């Protein structure tokens, strides 16, 4: 009898996978709540795809435990795990029609033909591809294939869905559109979803939580906003959003840029002596010198103005020669400050972030 739950929690405990002497996954653990949309975010080679493959059953870990709900699945072969998966290049069977692809998992489960037809029709409707049933895969556009792949992964109502960079093959506009569609689908169906991507913007858009992974270990697992506003270390700050870094020294609970103490909203979270001040382009503001008393002030010289449509970047080199960027909404080349002109920038203490380097 089929259970009525629509999602299962996932428990990853102390999973390790080594290839020769390199650890693709190094004792990783993660508890994923039932119905959560969590993204594994990291650069290439970070281990995110390896972890997804371990969850899917295609890679067997050297040690550790994977549970879907109460059931331990570490040694269960992939065809018995009953989870949905969307592959990076969709892997739609070219020798079957769209309807054939969608019907495939249902037929494997012995579902009678009449019901299969009904469910295929409903699935096509859900991804807005009504009437595409008899088309062949090579007749579909990239976006259409993506939606068929999605439909195939959920048609048998799995309680867990895995997605391996499913939107990376699409062009920018389509990708952004699909990000929202996937999110809606998740809200509608409610299954636990593990999403893998290297695109931090995508992760920020779609996830309930983001697990940043690098060199086979989790670096920070947080909600998108917390990850962005309060990165744990330089790697996270660099990977998520744009930033420039100024080296600072932390002594006695305060950060010093050279001789100057930096105004912070709260004391630095780490005690390492050598840390970095994170300058997010959109947090820096151009002010009239000397400006507000409670801002962190930076003086510099304008280097270049880059118009980017909805916003512009202003490149400024600071007193010690370090170039940083400020992002402003709108802006125009005619009214931009000239290269070489002096300029003063302000950063609110609440927006001032101090991070240690990656090793912390």
């Amino acid at each position: 009898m089929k259970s009525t739950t629509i999602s299962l929690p996932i428990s990853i405990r102390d999973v390790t996978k080594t290839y020769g002497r390199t650890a693709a996954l190094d004792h990783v653990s993660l508890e994923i709540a039932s119905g959560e949309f969590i993204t594994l975010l990291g650069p290439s080679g970070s281990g995110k795809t390896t972890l997804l493959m371990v969850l899917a059953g295609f890679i067997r870990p050297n040690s550790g435990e994977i549970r879907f709900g109460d059931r331990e699945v570490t040694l269960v072969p992939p065809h018995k795990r009953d989870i949905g998966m969307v592959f990076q290049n969709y892997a739609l069977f070219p020798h079957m029609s769209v309807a054939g692809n969608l019907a495939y998992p249902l037929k494997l489960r012995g579902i009678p033909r009449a019901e299969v037809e009904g469910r295929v029709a409903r699935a096509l409707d859900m991804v807005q591809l009504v009437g595409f049933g008899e088309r062949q895969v090579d007749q579909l556009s990239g976006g259409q294939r993506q939606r068929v792949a999605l439909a195939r992964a959920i048609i048998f109502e799995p309680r867990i869905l895995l997605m391996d960079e499913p939107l990376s093959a699409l062009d920018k506009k389509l990708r952004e559109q699909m990000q929202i569609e996937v999110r809606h689908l998740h809200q509608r169906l409610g299954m636990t979803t593990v999403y893998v991507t290297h695109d931090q913007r995508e992760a920020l858009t779609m996830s309930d939580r983001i697990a940043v992974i690098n060199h086979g270990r989790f670096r920070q697992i947080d909600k998108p906003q917390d990850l962005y506003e309060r990165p744990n270390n330089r790697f996270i700050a660099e990977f998520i959003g744009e930033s420039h870094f100024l080296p600072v020294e932390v002594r006695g609970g305060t950060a010093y840029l050279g001789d100057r103490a930096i105004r912070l909203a709260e004391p630095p979270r780490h005690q390492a002596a050598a840390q970095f001040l994170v300058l997010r382009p959109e947090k820096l503001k151009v002010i009239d010198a000397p400006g507000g008393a409670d801002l962190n002030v930076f003086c510099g010289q304008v280097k270049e103005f880059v118009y980017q449509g909805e916003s512009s970047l202003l490149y400024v080199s600071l007193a010690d020669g370090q170039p940083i960027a400020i992002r402003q909404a709108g802006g125009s080349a005619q009214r931009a400050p000239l290269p070489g002109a002096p300029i003063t920038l302000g950063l609110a203490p609440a927006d001032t972030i101090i991070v240690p380097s990656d090793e912390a």
Partner: protein
Amino acid sequence: MTTAASSARTEQQGFRQLGRNAAELSAQDRTEQWMLGSLALPGLLLIGIVALAPIIWLFWLSFRNAEGMTLAHYARLLHPSYLITLASTFELSILVTIICILLGYPLAYIIAQARPRIAAVLLLLVLFPIWTSLLVRCYAWLVLLQRRGLINTWLSDLGLIDGPLRLVHNFTGTSIGMVHIMLPFMVLPLYASMRAINPDYMRAAANLGASPVQAFWQVFVPLSLPGLAAGIVIVFVLCLGFYVTPALLGGGRVMMWSMQIERNVSYYGDWGAASALGVVLLVLTLGILWLLGRVIGFNKLIGAR
């Protein structure tokens, strides 16, 4: 004259100049095309004159005899002895092709799945027979299969048989030899097409609930069909026209189409009959290849060879 008008005039002169260059440019282009094309000319001429022209001549000869134009040579082909030859040629070709599929598919599958170093070694082992002389291989089979050859000696030493098995100078020996010759030609195109199968397909099949066996038959095999089709056609077509192995291992008991052609030339000096036989063989060969081209697309066919 106003500046606007004079600049328009210069523009027009400019365009006319462009027009003049256009003729020179296309002449230059054509010369270049001719030069490049002529690089292929020596090869084309050689093949055309030495191989293709004689065959056209043969084609013509097949319609002539002492009295003039005739279909007599073709009519003679309906004689029972020729039909028997046709039948045994097809029989052997079909049998060898089927055995090559049964042996070649697992081999290609393992090579396609193996790690690069093991695959390289296996491919080398498959290529080795192709690079070994055909006659050496026929000789090896003669040695192995003859009445006092290795296989019979071993089998009787092991007490498994009472008298020597007749393994050569007959259909059996010819089949074994032909399978040995043809197997690499089945394995190579199959391997190429299997390698091109994205591993994600099998993973998707498994993820959707297919057991390894189900995934193999329902996803892998269908996707490997182009390579299989190419292999089947290459092997079948080679078998149809094959001469050496049946001549050596058949002991005169296996009469193949190609041997019939040879006999008509060397023994009877009957060029009309030989040509007719040759033309039929050629038409059959080209027909089957064309069918394959229709099924999997001609570009792949040329690539597959």
